[in-house]
């Protein structure tokens, strides 16, 4: 019986962020499905796991967590010596860790809001029989383009966002990027050479492929 349990839905970007981390680290876990279409995430017993009523929630033994980026950081630290190291190569180096933290904040506050709205408008809305709002798409693509311009400059100097190695900073982007590659927004990535290379690198990783199945 795996001591690690993820309570979520395998299609959501936030749940995938956690599953990716577990896959990268070759950790055994149990995915307990939360049926979103039945509103299971807004009711007990799920609310006791995450009072904000959002997937995923997480358990490792008697430790209970929520917020995907808090969960991934816990996993990366707790299981540091297992599987892929998702922290900077010298993780005790505080300055280097701070650079990775900047990248995680940028993903959470600059990249993800625009990227998630674009995935919602162009993909998830259809599932609910709603129509894409083209004005919103244009507005959010303009915002995302600005962020990607900064990424392009950054990736000209470093192989990955936080430095020369793949870290949580890169990982946090993968689930929503995978969705956007199936939409016209893909062009924002492909028309920037270094971003395009980076996207190809991070999405071809075995763990990244595994979570799509």
């Amino acid at each position, binding site marked *: 019986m795996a001591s690690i349990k993820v309570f979520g839905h395998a299609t959501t970007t936030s749940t995938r962020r956690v599953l990716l981390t577990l896959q990268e680290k070759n950790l055994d876990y149990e995915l307990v499905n939360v049926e979103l279409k039945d509103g299971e995430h807004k009711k007990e017993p799920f609310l006791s796991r995450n*009072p*904000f009523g959002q997937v995923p929630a997480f358990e490792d033994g008697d*430790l209970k*967590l*929520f*917020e995907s*980026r*808090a*969960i991934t*950081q*816990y996993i990366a*630290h*707790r299981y540091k010596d297992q599987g892929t190291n998702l922290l900077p190569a*010298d993780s005790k*180096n*505080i*300055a*280097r*860790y*701070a*650079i990775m*933290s*900047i990248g*995680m*904040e*940028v993903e*959470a*506050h*600059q990249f993800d809001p625009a990227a998630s709205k674009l995935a919602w408008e162009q993909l998830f809305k259809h599932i609910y029989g709603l129509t894409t709002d083209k004005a919103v798409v244009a507005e959010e693509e303009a915002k995302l383009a600005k*962020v990607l311009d*900064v990424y392009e*400059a*950054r990736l000209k*100097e470093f192989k990955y966002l936080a*430095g*020369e190695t793949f870290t949580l900073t890169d990982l946090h982007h993968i689930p929503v990027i995978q969705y956007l590659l199936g939409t016209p927004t893909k062009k924002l990535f492909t028309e920037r050479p270094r971003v395009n290379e980076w996207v190809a690198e991070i999405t071809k990783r075995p763990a990244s492929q595994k979570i799509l199945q």
Partner: protein
Amino acid sequence: MRTILQGSLLPPPPIKLSHSSLLFSPSHSHYSNLKFTTKSSPSPPTITMASIKVHGVPMSTATMRVLAALYEKDLDFELIPVDMRAGAHKQEPFVSLNPFGQIPALQDGDLTLFESRAITEYIADEYSEKGEKLMCPGCNKVKAITKVWLNVEGQQFDPIASKIAFERIFKGMFGMTTDPAAVQELEGKLVRVLDIYEARLSKSEFLACDCFTLADLHHLPVIHYLMGTDSKTLFESRPKVAEWVKKITARPAWAKVVDLQKQ
């Protein structure tokens, strides 16, 4: 208003040993001026003058977040104002500090950082032995709980609360009018968050654990603004939340941040 502010009137800052495994080299990187080399042996330590510079303005919530952490830690720093009105934050030389063109940015010796919550985390880690701890004492599991509530502030509280502050306060400063429908909708969302805080604070003295941490500190700037508006009732009507607000806003370090606004 004094344009350059010393954190305190003390003799020159002490000499600080920089991290021996890093080579500091000049860089035109937008992101940071650290270059990571593939050398396997650590280079000899370089001596730098410890000097923390914050580029921002006392009115900005994100700048205040960083200033609060610096005061909690009793650290000397220089506040270098950024002329927002002139759009200085969207131009060089500022964008070399933060390519996203947002205040604050922080320089500590050769290290340049931005994103206020990455900066405060750095301050708490780098200066862990100085001043207030700002992190829960304990092992991985306790740190993980702190990260949960740090993410809650960043992902659940701030997006809503800062929009309310924008509507009620900042719009007026820019000659725009508050949209009461927007305020009502946002407050409807904020109360759901504050109900969760009320439940949490019935079980824990502060959000992450029984000590004051960054998870609490990060709320201070926006709460400070909202408590000066009609939105304050949302906080005051929830006893545990009200008690928590009172405690965190009464901290001497926070009073120093508020003081900077008056100068």
